[in-house]
């Protein structure tokens, strides 16, 4: 009986392994050198197009444009979000069915280039000079690693600080002279904070527009406004006096002018809806009746933080080619379709961002609303996060570490030192 049992078990395991082997086989992607006759499919991972009808329609336009060159090739899109992006990339690598085109964000390029997930764009004839000529200068360092280019910037997620002119007038502040330095901002925010009889904040004086675990980008912006970028040549540059001073200043604002992690249910900047008089905002505002309305828009004005250096936080979407693609030329052709002005402008509009082109200030999206116009005009002051080859690992520690410092659980200096020690 024992012998029989072993036989059955051996058969079961054998069958199981056979099934597993079948399951791991990936679909072949074939091609030829001639675009007109090339066949197969191109796997594209992209967070830029939302899964709405509008998003799908805009993406289809890009596919149609690509098919003019590669009529027999199909596109297999994977519409991801930034939250699920790393899972998608890692599992695709592990399963051996990597993407041909990957659209990621600023901060992703260096780690994935170091892991050899992205292809050097020199392989498809794109140099650093090409990128510098055609895209915003601010985006160039974000797509390079070891002097090689691994991505092509699509759209920029530029952010500014907005304030309500009416709130300034009401509080006796001059709307023509908005605060710029951290000291001025704190003074104005404290003056504009409203409290109830018990002292609880009923209207924050400044909106960080950050939930718990999401103060990293604000810290990057404030730090950059002191003339101190987060990383220099891939090395941590925040564990210094400027870093500590910036974090201590933020700590002084938390639960003083805004409760920690406060956001509205729509997770939109509070300043748009007059829930806060000053606050961080994204790269575009919809002034139509479907958005915040013209009256709200007219009450808004924008400025950049300036503690010696103007700083505008910039994230963005960057297109790269998978290192293991067998269709590098087709992949690059698809990226060329993505960066055509019409497609680029549509991407920016869909994501409340601006095109990452050299002439972004002249694009339709930048001209369509006052906030995009402002951030496009100031793109030269870009500050961005990332730079370390293990940034994706450090990033999560950054989120929790900053929270601990802001809530007084750990000293700012200790947090920044430990984060610097983690950064490679």
């Amino acid at each position, binding site marked *: 009986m024992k012998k029989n049992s072993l036989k059955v078990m051996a058969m079961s395991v054998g069958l199981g392994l056979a099934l597993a082997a079948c399951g791991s086989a990936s679909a072949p992607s074939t091609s030829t050198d001639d675009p007109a006759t090339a066949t197969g499919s191109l796997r594209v991972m992209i967070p830029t197009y939302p899964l709405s009808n509008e998003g799908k329609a805009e993406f289809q336009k890009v596919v149609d444009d690509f098919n003019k060159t590669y009529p027999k090739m199909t596109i297999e899109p994977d519409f991801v979000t930034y939250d699920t992006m790393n899972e998608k990339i890692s599992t695709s690598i592990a399963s051996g069915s990597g993407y041909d085109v990957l659209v990621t964000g600023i901060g992703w390029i260096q780690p994935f280039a170091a892991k050899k997930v992205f292809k050097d764009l020199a392989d498809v004839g794109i140099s650093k000079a090409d990128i510098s000529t055609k895209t915003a200068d601010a985006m160039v360092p974000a797509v390079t690693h070891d002097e090689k280019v691994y991505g092509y910037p699509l759209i920029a997620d530029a952010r500014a600080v907005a304030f309500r002119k009416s709130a300034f007038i009401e509080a006796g502040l001059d709307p023509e002279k908005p605060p710029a330095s951290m000291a001025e901002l704190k003074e104005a925010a404290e003056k504009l904070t409203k409290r109830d009889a018990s002292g609880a904040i009923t209207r924050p004086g400044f909106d960080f527009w950050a939930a718990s675990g999401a103060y990293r980008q604000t810290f990057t912006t404030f730090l950059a406004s002191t003339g101190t970028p987060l990383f220099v040549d891939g090395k941590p540059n925040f564990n210094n006096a400027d870093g500590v001073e910036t974090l201590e200043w933020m700590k002084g604002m938390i639960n003083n002018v805004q409760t*920690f992690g406060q956001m509205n249910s729509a997770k939109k900047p509070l300043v748009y809806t007059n829930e806060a008089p000053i606050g961080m905002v994204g790269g575009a505002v919809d002034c139509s009746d479907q958005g915040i309305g013209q009256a709200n828009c007219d009450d808004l004005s924008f400025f950049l933080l300036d503690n010696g250096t103007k700083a505008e936080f910039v994230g963005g979407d960057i297109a790269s080619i998978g290192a293991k693609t067998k269709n590098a030329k087709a992949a690059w052709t698809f990226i060329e379709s993505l960066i055509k002005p019409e497609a680029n402008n549509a991407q920016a509009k869909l994501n409340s961002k601006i095109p990452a082109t050299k002439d972004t200030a002249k694009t339709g999206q930048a001209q369509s609303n006052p906030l995009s116009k402002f951030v496009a005009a100031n793109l030269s002051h870009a500050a961005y996060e990332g730079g370390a080859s293990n940034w994706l690992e450090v990033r999560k520690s950054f989120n929790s570490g900053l929270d601990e410092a802001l809530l007084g659980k750990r000293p700012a200096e200790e947090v920044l030192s430990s984060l610097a020690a983690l950064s490679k």
Partner: protein
Amino acid sequence: MTPASAAESPIVAPAGPQKPTAANRRGGRPKRRSVTRKQVWAGWLLLTPALLHSTLFISVPTLAAVFLSMTDYSFSGEWAWVGFDNFIELMSDQNFKTAFVNTVLYAIVVVPISMGLALVIALGLNQKLRGMAFFRTAFYIPTVTATVAVATVWLWIYNPGAGLANGALSFFGFGPQPFLNSPDTALPSLMLVGIWQGLGAKMIIYLAALQGVSRELVEAAELDGANRWQTFKHVKWPALAPAQFFVLITSIVGTFQVYDLVYVMTRGGPGISTNVLVLDIYNNAFQGMRLGYASAETVIMILLISVFIIVGRKLQGSDKSE
């Protein structure tokens, strides 16, 4: 042995000497034994899907996790054998240490409280009262509701500015609480949701077990003059032992695997105050792209769950001996 029980247990060949059958007398192999062998084969055949499943989705991944835990694999295609380095690094990793403590705390608080509450509710619902079906459904709804939906609703309830919880507290004269926005209150707030969400599943198992308690035994106890507490203690409680064991084990495993609730509600924050093991494993594997390191964490979690289950079994064993 009653005729019914004899009919229910034909798979195992009866021990001891067999009566001679017609087949025996003809010199062939005993027919009964032949039938039993076929039944054994049938048993294995029926077990095959489960065995396949266990092999493919439990044994192979477990062995793979153990193997990966000794490597520095990070999805890049290149990896090296690092022995126990990942485990050594984990011992000084503050995120892991906090996740470990939080997970154990979560299990220690949520498992007994939710089991106790579920039993009380099951006892209450095991009555013949009007509208009982409604209450049974109401208590079970959180269990069948997607955790993401539950977490989203509780996020609104816990919103420090406009949430229902602070509204209710202010009605009774209490000041606003930060709930998920403070490292001091975030984990207890999550525990409360965990207890609430897990009640239904436990309650339904207890309810089924209570309805299986022999009516004759209960009546006998009542005839002997036992009050409700004594009837519960000496008749119902012992009868609930198998259900208790099942609920205990599934609760321990469930609480150690808490992830979706934390992911949606706090992402481990503020700081790392609500970091739990599965979230930390996820973060290391898919955010930090360190699969080898995350596998080492997984191995430790498997060992931890095993320890808790062994302790649970021991406790269950001592209950039985009583």
